[in-house]
């Protein structure tokens, strides 16, 4: 994999958007190259943090919507 396609593939792999065959190749690259592994782990960490930042609206907003419905 060249540098640009490596970066794109890492991201696609991280977000589960790769085909099975590509996933195997990418995982192999992660396992065999410490730099790629480090980049992947950094991306994964931030990704997991983003998944945790959901904030809910007030119950008042839900009530107003349901009143309209």
């Amino acid at each position, binding site marked *: 994999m060249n540098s640009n396609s490596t*970066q*794109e593939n890492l*991201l*696609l792999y991280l*977000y589960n*958007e790769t085909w099975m065959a590509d996933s195997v190749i990418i995982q192999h690259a992660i396992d065999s190259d410490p730099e790629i592994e480090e980049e992947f782990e*950094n*991306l994964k*960490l*931030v*990704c*997991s*943090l*983003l*998944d*945790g*930042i*959901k*904030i*809910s*609206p*007030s119950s*008042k*907003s*839900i009530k*107003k*919507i*349901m009143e*309209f*419905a």
Partner: protein
Amino acid sequence: MLLSDLTDNNLISKYIKGDNLALETLILRHKAKVFTSILILVKDKEQAEDIFQETFIKVIKTLKKGTYHEEGKFLPWVIRIGHNLVIDHFRKNKRMPMVRDTDEYRITETLKLHEENIEDHLVNSRIREQVRQMVDLLPIEQREVVIMRHFGDMSFKEISECTNVSINTSLGRMRYALINLRKIISEKELVLVK
């Protein structure tokens, strides 16, 4: 079968047939993602609440008219409605979102950190708030991709179609968003407890 076990499309069908609880289930299922995606753009909770309400009112009107297409995914559609309402809001108030910048954006905003020990759940909620504040600092294109991927559950292909850029550009923006966020975390020496 519980309403919460039904798919989005099943809940929509039930609502169209008159089951308001089905609609409420649908809203409660997706409220956090939709609200957070709006809040990240407008950065004001009160405005986000208003736009959130407008978003679902638009959703309801479309469902009642019978013009919602079942083939499409419900959540990305709602996120797009919210996103467009945010843009309308900015236009109305003559306020532009953060200036479009290059992907290699240098984050220089500082965040104050508390160093004293606190309970795990307080630590985690502080981290969540800090991460949300960090996302606020990203250039608008990077924030958009983050919102669409993490809250809109859109694929990079869908994001590229929605934002009229190539899939490589979408991937690049997401990559730089994650890199920039990682930089801030390192610079601020945030201790991340998961």
